[in-house]
């Protein structure tokens, strides 16, 4: 650790504390005024910047409606008008989530948002996109209706041809439902949080060919 970063006025036991080092690392790299800034560069004035926030809002609705559905069980929404309503919220929030995520992706592409050291942020964004597709896919397989049946029968051939089907059995409702309500949402949420923290830590990229910006 450099002298500038060394904790001052600490006992030797403090200096060797993993907890303290972690806290200092977070404070250095993601200070609160970067995580929740009240000011932005003046060029952050396009609607394109709103797509990311709307995607996050849609994800929150996806999770909230999904929690209600998972709490009531996978068959509730087929037999209850309230359940059908919450499934409608889940269905449309997923559609909106993908619409705005794709708009965000295209926006970031044409802004070359990976410039000036932001390549990892872009790459995690692509992983989020792929993980979201997998999460939605397991959701479609978990609907317990005609769509689920035919999607499973149709999709198994691609999964099996790729060798994935030996471990990811789309005909096994229990496996798909478990992945959909537990593991994959955790993965997507964790990656989205990491993506947001990386965006906030580095700040918004400058316009292309701006003074002080690099070319790639």
């Amino acid at each position, binding site marked *: 650790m450099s002298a500038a970063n060394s904790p001052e006025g600490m006992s030797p036991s403090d200096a060797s504390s993993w907890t303290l080092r972690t806290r200092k690392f977070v404070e250095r790299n993601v200070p609160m005024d970067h995580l929740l800034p009240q000011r932005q560069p*003046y060029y952050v004035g396009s609607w394109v910047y709103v797509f990311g926030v709307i995607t996050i809002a849609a994800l929150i609705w996806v999770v909230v409606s999904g929690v209600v559905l998972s709490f009531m069980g996978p068959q509730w929404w087929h037999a209850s008008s309230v359940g059908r309503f919450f499934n409608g919220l889940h269905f449309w929030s997923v559609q909106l989530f993908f619409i705005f995520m794709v708009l965000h992706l295209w926006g970031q592409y044409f802004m070359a948002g990976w410039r*000036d050291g932001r390549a990892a942020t872009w790459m995690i964004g692509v992983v989020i996109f792929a993980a979201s597709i997998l999460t939605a896919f397991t959701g479609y397989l978990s609907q317990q209706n005609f769509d689920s049946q035919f999607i499973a029968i149709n999709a198994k051939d691609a999964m099996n041809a790729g060798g994935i*089907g030996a*471990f990811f059995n789309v*005909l096994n409702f*229990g496996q798909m439902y478990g992945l959909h309500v537990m593991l994959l949402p955790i993965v997507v949420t964790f990656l989205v949080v990491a993506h947001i923290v990386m965006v906030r830590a*580095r700040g918004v990229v400058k316009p*292309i060919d701006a003074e*002080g910006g690099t070319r790639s």
Partner: protein
Amino acid sequence: MRSMGATQEEYYRGVRMVPYDLVKELALALAGLGLVMIVAAAFLSSPDVGPVTIAAWAQGDPVDFVTTATGELAGSTTSAGYGAPYNTNADGQSWGPIAPQKWFGARIPVDSANAFVIQPLQRAAVGNADLGAAIGQWKGASADQQAKWLDAYGKALPSATVSDGKVTVATGDYGPLPVMMSNLLGVAQAGGLDGLLVINDRFYQTDYTQPLLFMGDGGYLAGLADQAHLTGSQWGMMNETGSYPGQTWLWLYTLWYQVPPFTSDTGFLGLNASNADLGVIILMTVLTVALALVPFIPILRDIPRWVPIHRLIWRRYYATGRPVTRT
């Protein structure tokens, strides 16, 4: 180590900063989306066409059901000759030395003839002497004799008639097959086969591999899917029943199934219709990795600079002569 926090301070040095309320923006987005979703959920609801049961199949198209069950015994159905992960009766798809379907073997073993026909019949034979005798005759026959019965019965089925839900074929030497199939059809029409195919000696069930494979072997469910525009050749992977949007984000994945070489018998570089699933999986994996690596791929990373969409996004910046200094 140089912290990202310090980097941001340096990065924005000299750039005019203006008030921007991120939390308020998120709150407004949550409220606005919530309103749209509540209206959509209340007035448009969501797609929910009920599942097809084996009972519905056996009642709706008894000849297709019996034909499929006969095919299971003959080993001529899709599942019976599938290969991994269900059995070893085929090599599965491959592209040159790339054969992931075969690499992992039969990890989800399914014996179609036994699982879909013989075992359910054995359970149904309790208290049914005629059925018990028919199963005994079938199991006691040689493989050649079974093949002759199956061949004759299979040829008679296309001309079968249906009366009161029962399938009748022309008189012939079919051995015990008519008794076995009429009983299987009866059990299926009563809903018994829906349960028998998932019990596996357990009480709680969440695995529908067997009934879905069995229904997939028949033509009834596929016919309904075709009517709903859900099949692969109809861009079905991104469709949904009714007029609802489906998994539209799978459009590129679905696209490849509509174009050569994945629709061609001859294909290109060994990729064709017979290994289309593997080819499309490989292609989409490569494209996804390429998307992730765009920042490092020349031309792809330069397109945004060449296409002036960024001039629309940052039009105020470019219109004002790129002012970056604080005012």
